[in-house]
């Protein structure tokens, strides 16, 4: 809301306007854009966007939405506001996640209309609720296919690193995302504004810092004293009004964004004269049905100046008027909170929470329940427990794990007081999961044991099934397979008896995971059944869990074909349903796959992106990300691996989860070996093996024993480890290398080849130079020289380096053939290689060019000049044909 005079020239905003115009141009051509406009409060984001819209109003449709500034914003309100300006139908009878997803899709379709260009403006994103953020991410990932420009404005001084809005903004990447940052006005611009005012422009710039709103406020003030802050300026302006106008302004300041005329009427009666005065003095902005401030900063200033003894009563007045007239829950709760009206809060806040939760705005739901919790002592005891439990659940869904633990613990205490064992165990199972999320093994265990003890004293039921399944979940990650199977089976039997599909799916997932962890591929069967069950009964969380678990183990046992399929399907499943946290988990679990395949650039990029998202959640995922990124760095010889390993180790130890501890220990051992520190290698490997003793974990154990064997002789040769490692330990480097090659794991293949004679060492060197694995390449070169080999290349293949994308000669040859539409099978025949080898080459080409498909690869290759346009000599095709 601004008072931009039509036609007024915006100072120093030509650059941003040009960027917006360019975006519009590209959108017209069918390439939509997401524009993020950031600036401090008062720098004129609204003015900029309004000017842009006004400039193009003739042929562009503009839709407006704004996030509201209520203490807890109303879920999805801005999106509904936008939808109401289109022909998209909004079915508001049953607001839930499904209807929400339908709304998103309908809006996207509306934007994709080829003939018509649309601009959508979403203001004040820093106040956005979770559901609106989901909408932003949904549109932001798909806008490039529409002919629309989506502009979101926000204050970038409003939040710290972990704020959900900042995290969401961090997830928006790509060429279709444009970021504009508005700068304060320069002294020259302030001089222009201050021209006829008689004020010292330099002093004005110094005090205001170039903030346009502040500048205007100061210029409108009269008298010698220059207001030192925006607040002072606004209050000074207010002080010059009549008491009636001041009263009006104070009432209007109570409601964020705007106050309806009928509301003012009912609060203070006739007010036209006061409104005219306030409008004339530039304090208030009057529209047909509502009144507001020209800027949020002004509203806050006026509100803060109301004496505390009056402000509560005023909010109470607004509250009662809204109740009589009918209003939305969020607004009622907002005023009730500021009026300190316990009864109303207790009545409406839980309802507002329910509404928000249904739309997926869990942070907001938690905030509403938190407001109600302040007054919980006036409730009957069972209601207190129920409220605490609901708060805990919403906090859990909003990734506010510590708050969830606090409330759940309190709920447990109350249920215990009331002697409700069923309710207690329900809360305890929930608590156990939250403890697991923060990596507190002791807490997680204790809760589950207590839950089981309570329920075993009662006749068996579905709750006991869930408790058993929770115990099997805690066991599976520690490799306690017997315990997992025992309790998993018990849970399964009970769940089936009581027809509890969710628990059945949960138990099947754990059983399958345990089996896969020991290397028993039959474990896929229960997992697939778990997934099928969850999909059939639309249990989204359980389906996501099944995908995640299967992916984790498929990657662990290096079953790449399956891992690829699961990743694609799983991520698609989650993103379709807007459960982005699960798809983010899957991306984290997929990282070791990319590492194993040698796609280190892609893995590094993904790992760095994910690191930001997981600062506040998922210890398990963070460990995987840290370990994988550390391995990329240490294998490349890049700095920054050690701090990552340290943190990963610290996080992993309290969890007792041996897969993760083992992985980190193995990475530490590898780092020590590359540095030539034999003692350290033995130390790290032994630590890792210590945690594994008594458990079956063929891959992790194999890896750790391999590193240990570099430092000391291992006798007798172990048999319960994965085959390629067994071969390495037995000295059969050639068979091991073949096994690794068959599994498409080039680095491990090179490690095996490095134990062989000159020819093997050379082969290893070629692989390592392609991967960019400098430290191991140095070791291999040294071995070659020790064997007296001649002509050892000093660095990565010179042909590779001359080629811009780092493609080898063979890869360039293949790429040129791809440019002529030759298939992999044809390539294999033509080049006398196996299709598998060709597949590897094509993968490597895609990775080096940083693209995802052959078509993109060819395009990139032309752009980089790797294939000169019109080149055909290598193919032996007649030039006449190509021209």
């Amino acid at each position, binding site marked *: 809301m601004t008072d931009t005079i039509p036609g007024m020239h915006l100072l120093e905003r030509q650059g941003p306007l040009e960027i917006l115009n360019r975006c519009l141009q590209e959108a017209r051509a069918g390439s939509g854009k997401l524009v993020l406009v950031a600036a401090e409060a008062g720098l004129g984001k609204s003015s900029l966007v309004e000017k842009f819209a006004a400039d193009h109003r003739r042929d562009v449709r503009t839709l407006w939405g704004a996030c509201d500034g209520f203490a807890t914003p109303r879920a999805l309100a801005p999106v509904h506001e936008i939808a109401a300006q289109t022909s998209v139908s909004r079915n508001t009878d049953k607001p839930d996640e499904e209807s929400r997803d339908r709304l998103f899709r309908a809006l996207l379709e509306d934007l994709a209309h080829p003939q018509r260009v649309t601009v959508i403006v979403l203001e004040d994103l820093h106040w956005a609720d979770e559901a609106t953020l989901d909408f932003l991410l949904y549109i932001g990932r798909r806008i490039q296919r529409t002919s629309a420009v989506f502009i979101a404005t926000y204050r970038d001084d409003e939040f710290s690193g972990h704020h959900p809005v900042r995290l969401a903004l961090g997830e928006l990447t790509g060429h279709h995302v444009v970021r504009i940052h508005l700068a304060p006005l320069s002294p020259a611009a302030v001089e222009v504004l201050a021209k006829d005012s008689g004020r010292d422009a330099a002093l004005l710039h110094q005090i205001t810092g170039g903030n346009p709103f502040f500048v205007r406020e100061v210029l409108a003030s009269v008298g010698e004293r220059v207001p030192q802050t925006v607040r002072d300026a606004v209050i000074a302006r207010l002080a010059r009004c009549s008491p009636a106008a001041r009263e009006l302004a104070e009432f209007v300041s109570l409601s964020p964004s705007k106050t309806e005329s009928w509301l003012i009427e009912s609060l203070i009666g006739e007010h036209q004269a006061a409104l005219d005065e306030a409008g004339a003095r530039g304090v208030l902005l009057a529209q047909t049905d509502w009144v507001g401030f020209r800027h949020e900063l002004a509203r806050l200033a006026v509100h803060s100046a109301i004496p505390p003894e009056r402000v509560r009563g005023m909010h109470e007045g607004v509250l009662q008027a809204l109740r009589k007239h009918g209003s939305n829950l969020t607004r009622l709760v907002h005023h009730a909170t500021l009026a300190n009206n316990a009864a109303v809060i207790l009545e409406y806040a839980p309802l507002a929470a329910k509404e928000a939760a249904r739309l997926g705005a869990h942070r907001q739901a938690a905030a509403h329940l938190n407001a109600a919790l302040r007054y919980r002592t006036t409730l009957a005891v069972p209601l207190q427990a129920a409220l605490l439990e609901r708060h805990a659940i919403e906090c859990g869904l909003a990734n506010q794990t510590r708050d969830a633990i606090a409330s759940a613990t309190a709920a447990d205490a109350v249920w215990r007081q009331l002697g409700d064992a069923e309710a207690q165990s329900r809360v305890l199972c929930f608590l156990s999961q939250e403890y697991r999320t923060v990596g507190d093994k002791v807490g997680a265990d204790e809760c589950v044991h207590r839950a089981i003890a309570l329920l075993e004293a009662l006749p068996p039921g579905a709750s006991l099934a869930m408790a058993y399944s929770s115990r099997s979940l805690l066991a599976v990650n520690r490799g306690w397979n017997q315990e997992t199977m025992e309790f998993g089976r018990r849970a399964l039997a009970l769940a089936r008896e009581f027809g509890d599909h969710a628990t059945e799916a949960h138990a099947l997932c754990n059983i399958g995971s345990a089996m896969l962890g020991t290397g028993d591929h039959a474990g896929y069967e229960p997992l697939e059944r778990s997934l099928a069950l969850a999909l059939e009964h639309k249990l989204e969380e359980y389906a996501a869990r099944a995908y995640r678990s299967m992916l984790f183990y498929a990657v662990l046992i290096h079953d790449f074909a399956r891992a690829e399929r699961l990743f694609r399907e799983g991520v698609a499943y989650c993103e379709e349903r807007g459960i982005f946290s699960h798809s983010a988990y899957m991306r984290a679990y997929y990282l070791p796959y990319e590492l194993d395949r040698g796609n280190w*650039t892609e893995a*590094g*990029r993904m*790992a*760095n992106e994910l690191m930001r998202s997981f600062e506040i959640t998922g210890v398990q995922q963070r460990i995987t990300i840290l370990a994988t*990124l550390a391995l*990329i*760095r240490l294998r*490349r*010889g*890049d*700095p*920054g691996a050690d701090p990552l390993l340290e943190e990963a180790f610290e996080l992993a130890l309290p969890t007792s989860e041996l897969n993760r501890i083992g992985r980190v220990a193995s990475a530490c051992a590898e780092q020590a070996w590359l540095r030539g520190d034999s003692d350290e290698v033995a130390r790290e490997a032994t630590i890792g093996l210590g945690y594994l003793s008594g458990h079956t974990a063929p891959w992790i154990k194999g890896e750790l024993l391999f590193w240990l064997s570099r430092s000391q002789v291992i006798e007798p040769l172990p048999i319960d480890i994965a085959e390629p490692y067994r071969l390495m330990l037995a000295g059969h480097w050639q068979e091991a290398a073949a096994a690794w090659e068959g599994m498409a794991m080039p680095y491990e293949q090179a490690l095996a080849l490095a134990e062989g004679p000159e020819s093997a060492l050379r082969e290893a060197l070629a692989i390592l130079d392609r991967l960019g694995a*400098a430290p191991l390449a140095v070791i291999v070169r040294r071995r070659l020289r020790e064997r007296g080999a001649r002509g050892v290349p000093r*660095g*990565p293949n*010179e042909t590779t*380096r*001359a080629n*811009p*994308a*780092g493609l080898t000669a063979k890869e360039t040859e293949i790429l040129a053939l791809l440019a002529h539409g030759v298939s992999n099978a044809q390539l294999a025949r033509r080049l006398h290689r196996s299709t598998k080898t060709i597949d590897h080459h094509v993968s490597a080409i895609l990775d080096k060019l*940083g693209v995802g498909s052959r078509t993109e690869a060819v395009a990139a290759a032309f752009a*980089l000049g790797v294939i000169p346009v019109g080149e055909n000599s290598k193919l032996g095709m007649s030039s006449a044909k190509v021209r």
Partner: protein
Amino acid sequence: MSRYLIERDFPDGLSIPQDEAGAKLCRKVVDNNAEDGVTWVHSYVTPDRKRTFCIYDGPTPESVRHAAARNNLPISRITEVRVLDPYFYK
């Protein structure tokens, strides 16, 4: 944000023309770096132009590599460094 020393090897010898074309090339490098949040501070070159030692500021080694790939510049080694200046000590 860390400071990195990047060693590069140019077997054919690096050549950047001393004219507008060369200036344009450098500007392009700077722009590409910016997209990865990477800043080229300055470089040292051996007389035969076959090795350079470049000082870079960047958030991660991966961002430095990504920017280098974008600019078609090779990397032989990355080392994290801090500045040590004799005149800091009195």
